[in-house]
């Protein structure tokens, strides 16, 4: 292998295939020893809030230092300097948290580069990093528009290609391109003359996909893959809006109990019910609901913005309460970030924050845990411990089934048996006695929701068989798969299972999973068929650094 890229987003399209390998997303635990060139290319996730900027930059730098410590001294190491996320997503125009956080990272990197031979800094122009194509962002985590592919390829050809040797020979340690890009757009952000006070939100198809009354708590789409991740993005940004002093309210035609269940059970949602200062969840018309919200909060109707995907509801509000603003909802969900930008531009962006705006105590509390990351992470063990990864495993929880079916359909790399289960398949097998395990993963940077699925069947004489085991590539590379398996084995053992079988079904894409069962203590009793006797207990998972949280 020639080049290795440490990354936290999908960068494969920007590099020629074949000569470059990529780390897991946000992972620094695997460092190949045979690469000639290493590249560090992290970007701020655009959904990150301004309050998270420093903790993110600090965590990037802590990881970078781990990577540097593990990379052979003679290898070339290039670091892409951080740019702030697109300025148009900024809730407060004068807020420079991301600039300062990026500058902290960049100056720390430069300091390292001065001390280390063969280390260089690289700049990606803000015109590129500001230009996100939300379609590719939501469907594949691509951090900026593929239309910049030629420019990016050009930047890295200069480092990885023929010119690499020449660059490495330079004595000043800083290539000519290196020059932190300013954000030209930040200064011209529109700020509405009169900031609105309250955002009233519909729920079904506005804050999540689907209709809770019909699709159920597990069936609504939020988090996971598109379009669920577009709704999570929108919720995350709305949550930031609330932290900047905008009051949130709900106007929804639903059963209140259903909605409460959603907020309780879909804990991966960025918004919690407590963020909403007024809640009208009943079957009355929305004009009545909005009028009551205004009275309850003691604000004028002209201070309210009403966001609802239904044109009929917006027209109704428009006719009944013409003072309430009713911006058109995007017809494509990947345009939710643009819709949020429109909400900021026209109604909600603040120039600066006054003390009254800052109801940030809660936010600070949540951040304290992340700031611990700022302390030195001297080793990989420290790093994994500092992440405070929490796994939870549930069994036969039907609310998880839609996401599990999605995972089973979509996961290719770490999919042991390559069986594809639809929602109907899962429902059918569970009623026949099969155990369907769901794995959720959380760390200090947030809740990843359900990332793993396993299906275990009974076989003859007190034995069981793992019919499927799959883990999303987003969480691979931290030993999480081993812990998930160990937890399943413990539970199967306590059900009285004496021996458990498993099968690896090779596909064109799942080679990374080939040695998984052998690594976890299984014996290969026939080609790609594995077995483990549980009578002597469950072997400890390799690298037990996680706290297992059992519901």
């Amino acid at each position, binding site marked *: 292998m020639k080049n290795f890229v440490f990354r936290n987003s*999908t960068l*494969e*399209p920007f590099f020629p*295939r074949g000569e470059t390998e990529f780390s897991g997303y946000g992972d620094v635990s695997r460092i190949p020893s045979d690469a000639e060139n290493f590249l560090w290319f992290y970007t701020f996730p655009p959904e990150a809030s301004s309050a998270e900027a420093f903790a993110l930059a600090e965590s990037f730098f802590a990881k970078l230092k781990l990577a540097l410590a593990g990379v052979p001294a003679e290898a070339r190491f290039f670091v892409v300097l951080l740019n702030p996320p697109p300025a148009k997503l900024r809730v407060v125009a004068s807020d420079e948290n991301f600039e300062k956080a990026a500058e902290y990272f960049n100056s720390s990197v430069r300091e390292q580069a001065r001390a280390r031979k063969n280390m260089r800094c690289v700049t990606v122009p803000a015109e590129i990093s500001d230009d996100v194509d939300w*379609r*590719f962002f*939501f*469907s*594949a985590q*691509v951090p900026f528009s*593929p*239309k910049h*592919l030629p420019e990016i390829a050009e930047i890295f050809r200069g480092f990885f290609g023929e010119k690499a040797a020449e660059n490495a020979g330079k004595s000043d340690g800083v290539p000519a391109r290196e020059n932190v890009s300013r954000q030209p757009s930040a200064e011209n952000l529109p700020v509405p003359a009169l900031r609105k006070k309250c955002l009233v939100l519909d729920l079904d198809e506005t804050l999540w996909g689907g209709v809770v009354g019909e699709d159920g708590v597990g069936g609504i789409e939020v988090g996971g893959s*598109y*379009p669920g991740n577009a709704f999570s993005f929108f919720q995350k940004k709305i949550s930031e809006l609330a932290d900047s002093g905008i009051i949130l309210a709900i106007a929804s035609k639903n059963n209140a109990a259903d909605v409460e269940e959603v907020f309780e059970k879909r804990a991966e949602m960025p918004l919690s019910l407590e963020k909403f200062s007024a809640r009208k969840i009943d079957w009355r018309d929305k004009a009545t609901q909005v009028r009551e919200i205004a009275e309850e909060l003691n604000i004028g109707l002209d201070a309210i913005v009403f966001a609802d995907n239904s044109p009929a509801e917006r027209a109704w509000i428009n006719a009944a309460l013409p003072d309430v603003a009713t911006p058109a909802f995007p017809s*494509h969900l*990947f345009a939710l970030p643009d819709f949020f930008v429109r909400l900021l531009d026209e109604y909600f962006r603040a120039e600066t924050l006054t003390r009254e705006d800052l109801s940030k105590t809660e936010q600070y509390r949540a951040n304290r845990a992340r700031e611990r990351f700022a302390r030195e992470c001297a080793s990989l063990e420290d790093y994994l411990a500092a992440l405070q990864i929490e796994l939870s495993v549930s069994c036969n929880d039907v609310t998880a089934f839609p996401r599990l079916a999605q995972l089973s359909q979509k996961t*290719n790399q770490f999919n042991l048996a390559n069986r594809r289960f639809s929602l109907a398949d899962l429902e059918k097998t569970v009623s026949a006695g099969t155990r369907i395990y769901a794995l959720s993963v959380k760390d200090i940077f947030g809740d990843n929701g359900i990332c793993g699925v396993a299906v275990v069947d009974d076989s003859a004489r007190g034995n069981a068989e793992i019919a499927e085991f799959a883990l999303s590539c987003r969480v691979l590379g931290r030993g999480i798969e081993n812990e998930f398996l160990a937890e399943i084995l413990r539970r199967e053992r306590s059900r009285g299972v004496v021996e458990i079988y498993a099968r690896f079904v090779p596909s*064109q*894409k799942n080679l990374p999973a080939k040695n998984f069962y052998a690594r976890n203590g299984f014996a290969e009793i026939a080609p790609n068929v594995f077995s483990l006797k549980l009578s002597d207990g469950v072997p400890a998972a390799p690298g037990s650094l996680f706290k297992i949280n059992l519901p």
Partner: protein
Amino acid sequence: MTSIQESRLKNIFSETLGVSDGFAELSQKNCAAWDSVAQLNLIIAVEAEFDVVFEPEEIAAMTNFSSLAASLSAKLRAKNDL
């Protein structure tokens, strides 16, 4: 889709996946090189070549050559109608 457009499309597939024939049956299932990254590269190349924009739902459904060609055809027709 005209035959010229079709051969431009096949060129993209050849370059991205390294295949030279059997396009009609070509799918993510029977082609080792067609992984999720290749999928992304295919879409990016097709969008740039034909100046069209696919939606995420369409991209997810384009798992074989025929469905991709059909989607592209529909886009090109819609463009011409404008």
